[in-house]
């Protein structure tokens, strides 16, 4: 049982590397090819995150989101979720810090 996930991990990692090589070769947008989040920030006021996986924590000072490359932690003041859909999320407020936690 302990071996099984290790075995399963290996081809998956290979596949990911392969996709990275492929996308680099063909110059495909990485967020599509690798399913990575696309984050655009307007100053320190607005932030749009596409391709996120879920909300882990939401308070006024801190938001943690689950993404394909780890947990994204956003810190700031009076954070406000303007809209949420399955694909994207719009955060407004005073953003002070962004951090990826693996």
């Amino acid at each position, binding site marked *: 049982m302990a071996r099984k996930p290790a075995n399963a991990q290996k081809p998956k990692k290979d596949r990911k590397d392969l996709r990275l090589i492929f996308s680099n070769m063909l110059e495909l947008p990485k967020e599509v090819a690798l399913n990575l989040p696309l984050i655009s920030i307007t100053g320190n006021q607005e932030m749009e995150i596409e391709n996120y996986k879920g909300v882990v924590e*939401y*308070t006024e000072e801190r938001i943690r989101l689950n993404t394909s490359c780890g947990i994204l932690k956003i810190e700031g003041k009076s954070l*406000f979720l*303007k809209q*949420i859909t*399955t694909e994207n999320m719009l955060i407004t407020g005073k953003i002070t810090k962004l951090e990826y936690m693996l």
Partner: protein
Amino acid sequence: MFLKGWNYLRGYVEIRVSGFSVERFMNLAVYRGVYLWDIRYTPKGVIMKVSVKGFKLLRPCAKKTKCRIKIISKNGYPFLAHRYRKRKIFGAGFIFFVAVLYVMSSFLWLVEIEGNERISSETLIQFCQDRGLKTGAYKKGFDKNLLENELMLSFSDLSWVNITVTGTRAHIQVTETIPHQELVNRDTPCDIIASKDGLITSIVTSAGTPLKKSKDVVQKGDVLVSGELVVKEDETGIIKQYVHSSAEVWAKMYNEISFTVPYTYTEKAYTGEAENYYTIQFFGKNFNLNFWKSGNSFSNYDKITYRNQLSFGENYPLPVILIKNQAREFIPIDKTRDREQAEELADRIVTSRILREFDFEADIVGKELEFIPEDDYLRVLAVITSLQRIDEERAIEAEK
């Protein structure tokens, strides 16, 4: 902005979600395709907005994540409509208002004419009225081009006609032709006769045989210049030719004006007191707005009437005319004038009568006033000496 309007139209609910893991609830809701917006964190719970449709899907999510949902407010058109569902009269009234506005604006409420000088507006308006263009007529009830053509054909003095209908106002714009000179037919023989009595001061004949000369006294109807022209006169007989005579004849004449100037007169002293009476004219019918008042309390007053047609902007006059009758009180004060003032007034009266009664061409040479004092008035006898043209054409009856 657009999204906000759409959300308002569809209706949305503001809810407060509280529980152990609101994040899980949000994830689940989003995963199930519920659109959430304006999510705000408060210590009591997370406040968010969700559409009415989405809200129905939230209950199972809340149950699964053990969260509690509390509705804070319901917003949007469907809730508003639901609240006012019993106020049918209000709705009907609103629809009726819009309908009336629409119906009213499809009629003409003002017909204007611009550009006419020689043709009177009444004639043109009457002509248009007979052909369907009048106040209260349906906008599409008359053929604009046909009417324009008819106007052009019926009035030879018009060179251009344009009818424009803007809103509830019909504007008829016309341009008149240049007045054509009256043609003088020089072939028809005629005499020149005197149109007034007088003493001839000058006579300038350009055609015909003058029968009178300067300083002759003539009476109305006398032949001044004859159209009969003797071409040759010898033993064989007289050869005559009849011409269209023409002459400019000026004569001096005296006109007498007599009138009286009383020594006493009344003057209006306005007290400043005024009473207003309003009347509404609706579709040509008068409705008295001050029906409880019967007449005014003044014994002496002047009545002034103001008319004001109501309109929506410039292009939408309405069939409603507000009429304001103002009664202004005055006190008649009896006054007397002395001889000197009476003479002054008489002089002014004479001057104004000269301006009014004499031809523009007439030349006033002299003005003599004679005053005959009576008991309570002054009799005035004015003799006006003037120079006037007295030539007038009269066709010669065919003798040959």
